[in-house]
């Protein structure tokens, strides 16, 4: 299934891109996606353990099962205001 990964702030800057498009196995959860990205995207895993994850604009836990077409955002510690 196709997944769009969105990157922001320091993470986007470090990887020099704001989106990653990839195919992963059906019934994968967020942890599986992170494992895949750690294997295939140099620099991805640095600090990502402290990041929150949102799927289609809603925060989710790492065992959340993904669906085809989902947009998964890795959210570094926020600092608005």
């Amino acid at each position, binding site marked *: 299934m196709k997944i769009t990964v969105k990157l922001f702030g320091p993470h986007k*800057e470090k990887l020099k891109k704001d989106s990653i498009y990839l195919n992963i196995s059906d019934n994968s959860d967020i942890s599986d996606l992170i494992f895949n990205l750690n294997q295939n995207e140099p620099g991805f895993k640095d600090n990502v353990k*402290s990041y929150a994850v949102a799927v289609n604009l809603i925060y989710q836990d790492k065992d959340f099962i993904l669906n085809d077409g989902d947009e998964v955002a890795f959210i570094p510690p926020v*600092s608005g205001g």
Partner: protein
Amino acid sequence: MIVITENIIKIEDYINESNDSSSGSLLIFCGTTRDNNLGKSVDYLEYESYVDMAKLKLKEIADFSISKWSLNNLKIIHRIGKIDISEISLLIIASSSHRNESFRAIEYIVSELKKSVPIWKKEYYTDGESWIGSPDNPN
């Protein structure tokens, strides 16, 4: 009203329509960009946002606040992009029958915004730059 904008925030653009005859309190909070942080001199800041999600989270916070503190009107405006020192990055206007509700609501909104709304700021110094909230530069 929830607004995320790259434009300069002018209080007067939002204040008039916030008045209503049933309110005895109209409270305005401005978050402004300061010229120093953790002993460093800040030249300017840049804000980045995951806009669609930020609007969604701000609406959740606003809906909760309106219900909990019986607000008659609430506006949350956050600026993104490059912001010079002393400019407004966040404007909140809350009106309610009595002042306590507005004060409590605004304190809650700012606190929640800083915990969960996907907006990030980066400080620019004469000799470098740093994302706020990163391990070496906590929020």
